[in-house]
């Protein structure tokens, strides 16, 4: 048995070649870091810093020591008695993560767009909490809160409405500090948060090849709190990176390796993962795409690189569409992307519920992606081959022309067959009698049912709630002009 179904877009030699080119690039040319304190920290740690051009270079030994220093395995914690998530997944599978940052909410009843409100954030969080196929929660950005603190307000509401692990996305260095303080209150203490991180943060680069202020701040603060961090790179092929698949993978590899080395120089052993989020610009319209054939293949290749060359857990969009509403295009693109990315070995498939190139969130799409996730998990799980699964004895005993329905072997294994409640398994007659409902209608009904029967806020102790309110008030007082 292979432990997992694998698609390897690159050969081992190609992975090694890209890695060697990254090392050559980072040791001779390097990247620009627009953050004085970070440059000073790097200088102290032995990296080469040109303080006149802000160019940062790493010799090979520092790069290789950083790769060795990063932990191979660690946990994401959740609350409410949910089990910790071990990365990489112990069964070689993946975790799923919902869409981030989207500013638009797609109305379930009408498929129309409107601005996200704080109430929507609460609703989406409650929905994510009850959808078992979804593991990690990210959040849309409320428009009815002050801009400077919208992400802080959103995080508080997430804590109040889901117990799942949360991926933070900060809009400034200062707002991250407040978000991490909220997480400390939720976890009980700074130590408890580092021990069982109920959140993790994201850093990245200003592609191409600049570590910009906000990302340096995020790295420094995350190292201070000791929670895990995603090292992202968001190249847009043809725009901020080469138009070719390999060229975009190369840029993403350089950027991820850069933030990997910086984090491990500041805090050796900080849990990190590689997060290549590759887009491709449509050369005719200039619109970015996340689920074109090229962007999917770039992401799959970059995931392979992160796993094999950097030996880190890897995350990218495994869902999401360039389409505008939950429709056939959304289903095709999310499924294609998911199948390819999960087979490429990603540990986290992100972007569930997101549409319009990561700018909108839809409860209906969340319900649909929650259905796709277990199917992908089942397929990626691969085939187990042994005496029992081959049913050797049963096949020897088979009378030609008989059947297997009554076999003990069938009885023993019949619950292993994956069923989803949303994809049709009834006869067409039953389907017609029930109103000939298409997938989207069924998803909408499931959402309405969950809303009525299951979706509810999390129990949060009064004291914790008060502490969180204090932090948010403080943020509003200090950050809102």
């Amino acid at each position, binding site marked *: 048995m292979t432990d997992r179904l694998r698609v390897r877009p690159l050969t081992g030699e190609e992975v090694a070649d890209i890695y060697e080119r990254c090392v050559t690039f980072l040791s001779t040319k390097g990247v620009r870091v627009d953050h004085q304190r970070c440059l000073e920290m790097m200088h102290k740690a032995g990296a080469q810093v040109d303080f006149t051009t802000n160019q940062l270079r790493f010799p090979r030994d520092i790069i290789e020591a950083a790769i060795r220093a990063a932990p191979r395995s660690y946990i994401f914690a959740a609350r409410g008695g949910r089990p910790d998530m071990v990365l990489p997944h112990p069964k070689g599978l993946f975790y799923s993560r919902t869409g981030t940052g989207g*500013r638009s909410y797609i109305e379930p009843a009408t498929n129309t767009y409107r*601005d996200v409100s704080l109430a929507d954030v609460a609703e989406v969080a409650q929905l994510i909490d009850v959808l078992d196929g979804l593991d990690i929660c990210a959040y849309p*950005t409320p*428009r009815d809160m002050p*801009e*400077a603190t*919208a*992400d802080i307000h959103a995080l508080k509401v997430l804590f109040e409405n889901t117990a799942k692990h949360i991926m933070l996305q900060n*809009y*400034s260095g200062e707002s991250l500090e407040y978000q991490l303080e909220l997480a400390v209150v939720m976890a009980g203490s700074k130590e408890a948060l580092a021990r069982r991180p109920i959140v993790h943060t994201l850093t990245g680069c*200003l592609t191409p090849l600049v570590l*910009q202020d*906000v990302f340096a701040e995020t790295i420094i603060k995350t190292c201070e709190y000791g929670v895990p961090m995603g090292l992202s790179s968001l190249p*847009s092929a*043809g*725009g*901020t990176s080469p*138009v070719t698949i390999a060229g975009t993978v190369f840029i993403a590899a350089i950027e991820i390796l850069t933030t990997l080395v910086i984090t491990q120089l500041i805090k050796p052993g900080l849990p990190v993962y590689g997060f290549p989020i590759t887009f491709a*610009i449509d*050369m*005719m*319209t*200039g*619109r970015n795409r996340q689920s074109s054939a090229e962007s999917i293949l770039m992401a799959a290749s970059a995931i392979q690189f992160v796993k094999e060359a950097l030996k880190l857990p890897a995350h990218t969009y495994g869902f999401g569409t360039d389409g505008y509403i939950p429709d056939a295009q959304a289903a095709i693109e999310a499924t294609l992307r998911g199948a390819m990315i999960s087979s490429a070995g990603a540990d986290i498939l992100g972007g569930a519920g997101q549409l319009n190139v990561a*700018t909108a969130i839809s409860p209906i799409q969340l319900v649909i992606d929650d259905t796709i996730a277990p199917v992908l998990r089942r397929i990626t799980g691969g085939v187990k081959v042994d005496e029992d699964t081959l049913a050797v004895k049963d096949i020897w005993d088979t009378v030609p022309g008989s059947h297997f329905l009554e076999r003990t072997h069938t009885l023993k294994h019949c619950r292993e067959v994956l069923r989803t409640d949303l994809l049709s398994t009834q006869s067409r007659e039953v389907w017609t009698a029930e109103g000939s409902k298409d997938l989207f209608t069924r998803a909408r009904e499931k959402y309405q049912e969950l809303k009525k029967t299951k979706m509810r806020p999390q129990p949060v102790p009064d004291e914790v709630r008060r502490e969180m309110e204090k932090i948010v008030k403080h943020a509003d007082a200090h950050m809102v002009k």
Partner: protein
Amino acid sequence: MASYEELQQGVITADEGKVEDLVRQLLAAGNNPLDIIARGLTAGMAIVGQKMKTGEMFIPEVLASAHVMAKGMDILKPLVGDKLSSIYIGKVVFGTVQGDIHNIGKKIVSMLLESGGFVVIDIGVDVPAAKFIEAVKREQPDILALSALLTTTIPRMKEVIQALSSANLRDRVRVMVGGAPVTQSFADSIGADGYAPDAVLALERAKQLLD
């Protein structure tokens, strides 16, 4: 003999050597440099603009044509002297607002504006209102273009427009806004003069703003 049609073709196919040769030949044959520009180079670029709108040409091809047109211009510029300003249809100061570092959308729009005959001064990302005001004073552009990609930074656009008013510059410059979270109704609500959802329409809108 070299013709304006051939020169237009040279621009459309982005054939640098051909365009430079043809410009020299047309000059040698006694044609007026301003005619070579108008009937050859910019006429070719106008066809490119059409082909971009219909999707026949891709953005990098349009940019290559614009680059080749500029090469032809380089030969003619010294000959037309101060009549040169009439070649450019307008000037744009362009920046991404404070707190926002997204820049590729701005770059694409800038380049297409340039290809359409605008001079664009790109003042970068994370630009505070004061720096926009400074640039408007210094460059005296026809259009001030603002980009923002975050819902948390689009309010800065309104602040730039207010700062223009405070500096008594509002009636001297047309303001165009764009970026993924920007909509026509948002643009209207902050008193911007123009908005476009993508680069192709941005060029069209910018031209309209000059009328």
